[in-house]
């Protein structure tokens, strides 16, 4: 009983230290944060320039928000694993913590990053794109929160895969897109419902799909991570 208890605390401790290690080294370099931020600013300005003074239909604007988020996420979320390979710290980490603690620690880190990214993107997008109005806030909030969770899960496991491959940067969006597509289509549809002012009950199906996507992808990622992580 006591042994199980102490095993669990040591597991949680290694999970927390993996998260804190990434968090502190991120604060030191601010590599991912600044990449994500600049990416969002750049894409939103491109959208603004290309729209000019003309508006776009609300459905298209709802879709474009997720284009910003997708490519923003692709520019920064692979950092957590690629960094370990570049610094040559993978082996040390393998010795110090069980694989699943590493996976969930990195997942937590990516979750914090993507939640921040989504908050900033939505705020900037809503502030500068005039035609983008959310009428049902509850649907939109659910889509963004659940979308962040699903994004973080899928992005973390793909990051673990590409960190081990030779071409790191270019492959990340290519591998992530088919995996993220069910999620993207669902959140885009939910955002469109929210900007149409549909009642919350109409989006129940979307929310069910998002929750099951999060559960399925996280479980699969957790089960497969061992194979990627151990040589």
């Amino acid at each position, binding site marked *: 009983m006591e042994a199980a208890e102490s095993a669990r605390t040591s597991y949680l401790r290694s999970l927390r230290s993996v998260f804190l290690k990434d968090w502190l080294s991120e604060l030191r370099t601010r590599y991912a944060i600044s990449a994500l931020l600049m990416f969002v600013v750049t894409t939103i300005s491109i959208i603004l320039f290309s729209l000019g003074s003309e508006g776009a239909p609300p459905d298209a604007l709802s879709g474009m928000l997720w284009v910003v988020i997708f490519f923003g996420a692709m520019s920064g979320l692979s950092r957590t694993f690629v960094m370990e390979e570049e610094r040559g710290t993978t082996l040390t980490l393998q010795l110090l913590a069980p694989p699943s603690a590493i996976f969930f620690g990195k997942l937590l880190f990516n979750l914090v990053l993507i939640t921040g990214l989504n908050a900033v993107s939505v705020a900037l997008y809503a502030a500068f794109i005039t035609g983008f109005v959310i009428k049902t806030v509850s649907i939109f909030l659910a889509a963004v929160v659940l979308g962040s969770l699903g994004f973080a899960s899928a992005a973390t496991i793909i990051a673990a895969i590409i960190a081990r*491959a*030779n071409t790191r940067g270019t492959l990340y969006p290519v591998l992530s897109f088919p995996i993220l597509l069910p999620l993207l289509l669902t959140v885009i549809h939910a955002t469109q419902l929210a900007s149409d002012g549909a009642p919350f009950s109409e989006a129940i*199906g979307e929310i069910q799909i998002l929750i099951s996507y999060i559960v399925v992808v996280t479980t699969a990622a957790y089960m497969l991570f061992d194979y990627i992580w151990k040589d």
Partner: protein
Amino acid sequence: MVVKVLSGVLLTLVIILGLGLPMSPHPQSWYELPVIPGLEDKARIIFFHVPMAWLSVIAFLTSMYYAIAYLRTRQMKNDVRSSAAAGLGLLFCILATLTGAVWAKFNWGSYWNWDPRETSIFVLLLIYGAYFSLRSAVETEEKRATLSSVYSIIAAVTVPFFIFIMPRIMTGLHPGAKGDPEGAGPVVEFKMSPNMRLIFYTSLVAFTLLFYWLFQLRVRAAALEAHNDQRG
């Protein structure tokens, strides 16, 4: 050998019967296919296009099966099988997409309409494309096998979501899609006359045998290649 001959004979039969049998509005004898209003001769695509799409799905599942087998056993032969199946899957996926697109131009007016089934096969193409880019990016054999196996399993668990998502966001043109009175299930009851049905199922069997034959061929070729590499 048996598989090769059998698939050859059956495919020849399907091609001759599927393309050659006359169509008439009121079929009298066994060899006359019924005319489907609005489709006419264009209905003959069902004997080729559907089995191709069917094959690309079979190949996808075979590839995933051997990916799991590789992760369990760590034997290279399973990875060879997994990638051989994926290669054939990609080939038939492209064939199904092209035949479908050309047909859609003549029947639905444009090459591509983002109908649910078109979207699904597009996703399958993307997955195959990503799978092979991943494989070409990793040089070490074991690493390539492990990473691509993991990727194909993750891709396979997300594909079923499209069954639920597609009907919510778009209406379909294919038989069995939303709006079609026949129902929107993934398995479609085609309204076919008995002789069409016979040719159709023969074609499914013939294409499955063709897949099996090509699959064995590729696996054997890969084994020979590995053998040659070892001898230097």
